[in-house]
């Protein structure tokens, strides 16, 4: 049986999502569309002057993937909360693998609230984001 928000049990995984490889073009487009023009993500000269070897991806581009993972599964109308901690820099060229697992199912006053633990990892296994989604599981 397909796991859905209404039947999900603790321990159930959500379908994985991959994104990438994240090119410089992707970063340029994300800078433009998000309004985050911080040059550390798009301007190699600026990044080197700031002591970095290269530009690196916007954390919010990765969080957007955790958001997609959650809304692909649950739909926007069931989303109650989404939170992320950025744990490592995502280099240019990385491919993200995003995963989620139901870690709590809580019923209160006839409403069901799921907690889904989320994470993003890059090719070498480094975790770049960890987070959590709160999703309505009421039928």
């Amino acid at each position, binding site marked *: 049986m397909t796991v859905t928000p209404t039947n999900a049990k603790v321990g159930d995984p959500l379908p994985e999502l991959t994104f990438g490889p994240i090119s410089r073009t992707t970063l340029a487009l994300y800078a433009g*569309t998000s309004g985050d023009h911080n040059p*550390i993500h798009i301007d190699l000269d600026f990044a080197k002057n*700031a002591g970095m070897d290269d530009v690196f991806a916007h*954390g*919010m581009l990765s969080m957007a993937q955790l958001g997609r993972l959650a*809304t*692909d599964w649950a739909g926007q109308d069931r989303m*109650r909360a*989404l939170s992320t*901690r950025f744990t490592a820099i995502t280099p240019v060229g990385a491919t993200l693998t995003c995963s989620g697992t139901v870690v709590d199912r809580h019923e209160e006053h006839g409403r069901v609230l799921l907690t889904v633990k989320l994470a993003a990892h890059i090719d070498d296994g480094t975790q770049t984001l960890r987070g959590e989604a709160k999703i309505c599981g009421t039928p």
Partner: protein
Amino acid sequence: MGIFNRSTKGHVTPPIEVTLERGPLAFFSETIGESDPVYLDPEAAQAAGHPDILAPATYAVVVGTFADQIARRKGLPDILELINGDLRVLLHGTEAYTYHDPMFAGDVVTVENEVTDFTDAKGGKLEIAHITTRITHPMRGLLVEATRGIIHRLG
């Protein structure tokens, strides 16, 4: 010694009105790899019972950034300028959303930022600014509350 201007703790920015334009919203959805048509195609969104295309889960950060751009055009400091953020040593530490009602293309919302706190971590090697952004609709009330931790790498 930190870089953030800690005297701004408690400051609330003047409300800024932001229109969620359909084209830019669909472009954002495309760029993040969104393929669900409710985020891309107005007809599909309307067929699913929505007034227009939906804003993806992290679009609140973009609405906040648009409010910053509008503030700058009005000659007001944006949030980073207000707290004296330094892009050379700045990292995004945390981001969190509480969803109250969805955002759609065509919505005209009000954005307000509050500088809630400054903290230190890793024995003073990091300083963190804590910002809360509230996005409100005139009829539907609070749509999204966003909290953000912005880090300076020091020394």
